[in-house]
């Protein structure tokens, strides 16, 4: 995964549910990219969708980036904090793209009220859809760590394997991105993810 060295742009799509910490994840990755000397653009969703809606953030980096948006079929990485959201944006992924999914379900209101069903075989659907799939017990690991909100950083830890940035860069960026009292726990979360595989 070092194609960015020959000038090609790398595309990362983050998906999840409003309130899950997608924007923080996007900021951490984008800053790690910048500190590692690449051009980077990202796009974040604010406003109405943050009220429990489906949310995406997009990050693109390389030698020179124009569009902040990823086109369909071109994402190198899809990071999903919720399983249904991984499938929802599957058409953005390129054929051999890598998928990192939080093993976590949040039912949309349509499911909660019985109008539609959360796919019972969602894990199988993901296995069939994605050729490079990591399902990570992010929420459980984060709970064990002491803060359920750090599952986003655990996933970033696993993503960091695929990206050519130094570990110190990641750690520094995480420290800069969260409030002081959450620094240590987020660094630990990153290390848990990074040690996976």
């Amino acid at each position, binding site marked *: 995964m070092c194609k960015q060295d020959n000038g090609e742009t790398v595309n990362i799509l983050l998906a999840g549910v409003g309130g899950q910490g997608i924007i923080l994840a996007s900021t951490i990755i984008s800053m790690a990219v910048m500190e590692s000397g690449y051009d980077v653009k990202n796009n974040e969703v604010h406003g109405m969708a943050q009220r*429990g809606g489906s949310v995406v953030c997009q990050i693109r980096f390389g030698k020179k980036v124009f569009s902040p948006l990823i086109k369909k079929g071109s994402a190198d990485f899809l990071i999903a904090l919720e399983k249904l959201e991984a499938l929802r944006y599957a058409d953005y992924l390129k054929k051999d793209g890598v998928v990192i999914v939080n093993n976590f379900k949040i039912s949309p209101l*349509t499911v909660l009220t019985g109008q539609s069903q959360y796919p019972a075989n969602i894990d199988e659907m993901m296995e069939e859809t994605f050729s490079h799939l990591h399902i990570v017990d992010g929420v459980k690991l984060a709970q064990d760590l002491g803060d359920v909100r750090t599952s986003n950083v655990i996933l970033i830890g696993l993503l960091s394997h695929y990206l050519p940035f130094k570990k110190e860069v990641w750690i520094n960026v995480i420290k800069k991105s969260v409030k002081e009292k959450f620094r240590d726990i987020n660094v630990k979360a990153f290390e848990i993810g990074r040690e996976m595989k």
Partner: protein
Amino acid sequence: MKNQKELLSGNEAIARGAYESGVNFAAGYPGTPSSEILENIVNYPGIYAEWSVNEKVALESAAGASWAGARCIVTMKHVGLNVASDPLMTLPYVGVKGGLVIVVADDPSMHSSQNEQDSRNYAKFAKVPLLEPSDSQEAKDFVKIGIEISEKYDIPVILRSTTRISHSKGIVKLGTREENPHKIHFEKNPQKYVTVPAYARVMRVKLEEKIKKLKKLTNRIGINKIILNNKRLGIITGSISYQYAREVFPDASFLKLGMSYPFPDELIRKFASLVKKLVVIEELDPILEEHIRSLGIKVIGKEVIPDIGELNVDIIEEAKLKLSGKKIVKKKVLKKLPDLPKRPPVLCPGCPHRGIFYALKKCNVSVVGDIGCYSLATYPPLESLDSILCMGAGISACHGMDKVGYKNVVGVLGDSTFFHSGMTSLLDIAYNKGASTIIILDNKTTAMTGHQHHPGTGKTIKDEETVHISIGEIARAFGIKRVREVNPYNVEETYKVLKEEISSDEPSVIITTEPCILNVRGVEVEPCYIDADLCVGCGACLKVGCPALEKVLITDKKFNVQINTVLCTGCEICCQVCKVNAIKKE
């Protein structure tokens, strides 16, 4: 500092640009996608900043500050510029002293808005120069250019962003602050500042002279540039569309417009003469396209580029195929997936709006709505909102129905919305002997746009203490006698109060008392639970539409409901709705 770079969103970059250009006065009203500009400006030294009660007030305040010599920035979303359009249309006549930049953020595709108007139209309408950045670096730089143009040509400048500019981050080179050279002083000059008809007629002629000079500028300014490449295809574009187009047409020639009004006619003619085929790529209205055509230049535009919704690389690739006359083959996706359950935004678990809309549904009345989180009560299962037009209409449109004899109706709007433009609507009801029932959903913040302060919170944008304005006292001062408070978490009481006020033939105002649940922090919550032995699976609780309640199949046909204790805030609305008292607290 000189080589310092930062990763900034368009909004953060605009705030930085205001700081670097010596801006002293900043005002605005929150609205997605513009809100973070002012929220970031607050952190810079040397700038007075305020959340104004609405955009009209913001622009008028900035006009005064500018006339006294301050450099000013005003921020708002696209529909906010409609509110501010009154001062906007006359300010170009009067002009400025300190530079004045009006930042307007459009929302193509209506991610978080009620319409997708193309605010570029205002530039031509009001006769003001228009700047359109295409990334964060330009967003910062164009504020400074805007201030310079404003001061040099004695005119306000519109800087237009869009959702994808405002909420995309990019690397920005920082600069240092250049202080405003003007002394704060207002010089008496009625021919410049007083728009009585005799003087305004003279200003009107002068405005055309300003535009004439600006036309010269727009043809030579550095931010309008020709990028020559292969001359078979020339693309005229600006804003975010430029970035998409560069991606799709790496070999084409470009005329990239950073200043798109006044139209740079000479530059357009020159570019058109250099290339074989000319295409305009612009989001929303065909503004550039129609103008270019009016110059007698052959151009392709909306034949291949949609005029509804935002653009992206996929759409422009499709346009490329259309241009080449090739057949459009639907791109293969990984694998055809079954339809997934949709995930629209919802009222948060524990939201105080839930109780009032549940009670309103029981009342079986029409509900005239407004702009805010409560617009989410439109969707099932609450389905309690029957109209949304614009801020303030929650009161005035209700009044209109009442006056023509439709009485089974209430108006609802939020607290920030009430201060923004509901106050005048309520005054109109009082003055014109209306009998409407108006519900003010006072959750003590501007929730949807990210919890900004307003006159009812008792705090300024800088979190400083200020007067705490009471909505009830305002209503009473307007002469409305029936003003009642209600706790929306108490469903029965809420229903009772609603019933009484709807049947009254006097105007009445009902004010909810509970704050936005997202602002209730640090309070220990005790979630509810459902006693599975008592639950009969009737589904009554599901009708409140709370994301913490889930219908669960227990056998083939029988189901019951479970509570997600992580999400539940223990608001107890579902407990009150349960017919068999199966929902409890420990």
